[in-house]
């Protein structure tokens, strides 16, 4: 009897001790959408943070694709199941702003009585995620699209790998040359096809929606089809008809075609760079270049993709403290450099960028510079070139993909895009009814 009581008391004391320990330890759930080779890199970064202070822990939870993560957060919040910290892709920017579920990033240091220099983040990222001059989400994994190409295929077809195509006409010509030489049958695939349409608009200083591309106020209608989109879709259709462009699915689906050598070129996010290089290994030489364009239209810029970090407005001060420490940690040059080198995402801070320059990283791996240089060298002075902000963006992209699938099967440009425009205009109106 006595020994039982002993055991019970010991148990009780241990539980109490554990209890106090647990209450000092603050664990913050962090929902993310880093799939593929990027999961391990993210876990390493978070692991590094968790080692610093055992009382401040971030718990990364993979929530599926970006689209699923966004849907899950919006669904979880009303019932109190949302995480304090969530990674949301750029498509969800306006939805998150309108959701009323978040603390705008610039208010986080204020709430903790701290200061933070947002000027340290690189320009394109700040511009994309800012509203009225303030950052609304925390810069993290930013990317843009670029052209990947298989230099060995170029050589085999007698093309100069130092002269990748710069215009769509050249892509088409190169494609026919590669086919004629029997190197490949399909030449180019687009990762995130809907996003590539958005990139083309911005790259030629064309608006997606009105109200300064949805950046001054909510967009009320789409600003296409135009003569430009006719040209674009006609070109894509012609390339598809010649078998040069293969519509090979959404998101990262075309990567397997490129890495296995059945496609010579691919438009894809920089964030796939390290994954692709690891998969390809020494099989062939992967090179990268700016996104192809049409020289007869004005120059704009490529737009930011990837994701940024949002904090739920229900996060407690203790949670917020951990999150802010995590943000500070992410801004450390060595962490940012590690992230960039292992994923292909942009370095987010100027300090990291300087360190990379000083190390000679960009000479060592020029592919890591391509997309960054592309976005730094473009225009920055209006909404068209910074990129659109749309409430029902996820839904709008469905319709864009349908239009592109249609174009790849030879549907006339106007027909394909008119249908998408009609649908998206309805969505924008519905959003306006509720967003105000």
């Amino acid at each position: 009897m006595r020994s039982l009581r002993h055991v019970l008391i010991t148990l009780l004391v241990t539980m109490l001790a554990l209890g106090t320990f647990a209450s000092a330890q603050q664990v913050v759930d962090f929902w993310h959408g880093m799939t593929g080779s990027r999961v391990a890199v993210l876990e390493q970064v978070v692991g590094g943070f968790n080692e610093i202070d055992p009382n401040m822990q971030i718990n990364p939870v993979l929530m599926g694709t970006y689209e699923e993560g966004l849907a899950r957060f919006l669904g979880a919040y009303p019932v109190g199941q949302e995480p304090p910290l969530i990674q949301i892709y750029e498509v969800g920017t306006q939805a998150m702003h309108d959701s009323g579920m978040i603390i705008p990033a610039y208010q986080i240091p204020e709430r903790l009585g701290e200061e933070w220099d947002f000027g340290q983040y690189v320009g394109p990222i700040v511009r994309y995620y800012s509203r009225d001059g303030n950052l609304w989400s925390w810069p993290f994994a930013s990317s843009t699209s670029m052209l990947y190409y298989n230099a060995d295929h170029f050589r085999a077809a007698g093309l100069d790998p130092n002269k990748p195509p710069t215009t769509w006409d050249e892509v088409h010509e190169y494609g026919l040359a590669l086919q004629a030489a029997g190197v490949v049958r399909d030449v180019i695939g687009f990762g995130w096809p809907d996003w590539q349409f958005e990139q083309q608009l911005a790259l030629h200083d064309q608006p997606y929606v009105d109200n300064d591309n949805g950046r001054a106020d909510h967009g009320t209608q789409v600003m296409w089809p135009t003569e430009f989109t006719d040209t674009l879709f006609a070109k894509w259709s012609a390339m598809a008809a010649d078998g040069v462009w293969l519509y090979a699915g959404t998101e990262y689906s075309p990567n397997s075609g490129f890495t296995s050598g059945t496609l010579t070129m691919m438009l894809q996010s920089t964030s796939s760079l390290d994954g692709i290089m690891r998969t390809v290994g020494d099989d062939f030489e992967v090179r990268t270049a700016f996104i192809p364009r049409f020289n007869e239209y004005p120059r704009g810029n490529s737009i930011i993709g990837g994701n940024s970090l949002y904090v739920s407005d229900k996060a407690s001060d203790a949670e917020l403290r951990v999150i802010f420490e995590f943000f500070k940690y992410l801004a450390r040059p060595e962490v940012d450099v590690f992230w960039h080198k292992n994923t292909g995402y942009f370095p987010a801070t100027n300090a990291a960028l300087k360190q990379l320059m000083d190390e000679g990283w960009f000479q060592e791996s020029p592919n890591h510079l391509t997309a960054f240089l592309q976005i730094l060298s473009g225009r920055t002075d209006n909404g068209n070139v910074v990129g659109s902000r749309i409430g029902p963006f996820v839904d709008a992209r469905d319709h864009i993909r349908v239009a592109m699938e249609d174009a790849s099967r030879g549907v006339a440009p106007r027909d394909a895009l008119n249908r998408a425009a009609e649908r998206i205009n309805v969505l924008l109106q519905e959003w306006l009814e509720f967003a105000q």
Partner: protein
Amino acid sequence: MNRFPGHNILPYALIFPTVAVIAVFLIVPFVQAIYMSFFRISPFGRVRVYTGLRNFEELLRSPEYLQSFLNTMLFCAIVIGFGLGIALFIAVLATQKIRGAAFYQVAFIWTYAMSPAIAGVIWALMFDPSVGIFTALLETITGFRLNFTTDAVGAFLLVTIASIWIMLGYNICFYIAGLQNVPNELKEAALVDGAGPWKAFWIITFPMLSPTTAFLIFVNTLYAFFMVFGMLDVVTQGGPGQATEFLVYKIYRDGFARLREGQAAAQSVFLFIMVASIAGFQIWTSTKRAVYSR
């Protein structure tokens, strides 16, 4: 009035857990869905406007919904019709007196052990437009180049065939069990009376299998309406266009990706009525027509 003499509480206590689980996880959400279907709900749930039957009206008028309905019906018909036909054929073969019959009987059940999502990953990879091995094989044999990411008919067929394939093991399993219950005397009597094996099958075996068939039609209906979700999500995400956006997947896309909860709720009410009436009809006909006793 005492339904269970001598046991006042026990029977109710025993069924309480089941009833509680059903109430909490099925009845409550279902009532909520019905309630929500009368509202227009803003993308973040902050604004709810009572709109009466507007969600239902919009659905009935929506060409996308009609298309999704027709696609789903066609899909169900093919999955059930071909699925059961093929399963019965294989089951009959596997129960013949052949060497290794036991091996075949087990081997055919394997497909069911795989979750639809995993099967989806495999099928999507096999038919990948650029690196898929079956895409290449199909082209070598027929000269037709399938790209299920742009070809609506191709995507529909791919999803349909994959769905039949997954369910095949389950169906075969039940048919084998059913076939083993058909008494040999009856078949032998028919053969002695001069019926060929084909005729003996149709007049003896097939009617004797009708309880199994009725049950399988019911299970496969539920499968085709609801359980294909995992595979659709992995293989096509409802595309290309909305060719494979079947009713259950459309509810998910509209409710969660497109943030239209009210309309999605209305769709789930419709889907419930549809499946409930189909299931009711099947149970009614099968209890009337199936031969349960010998």
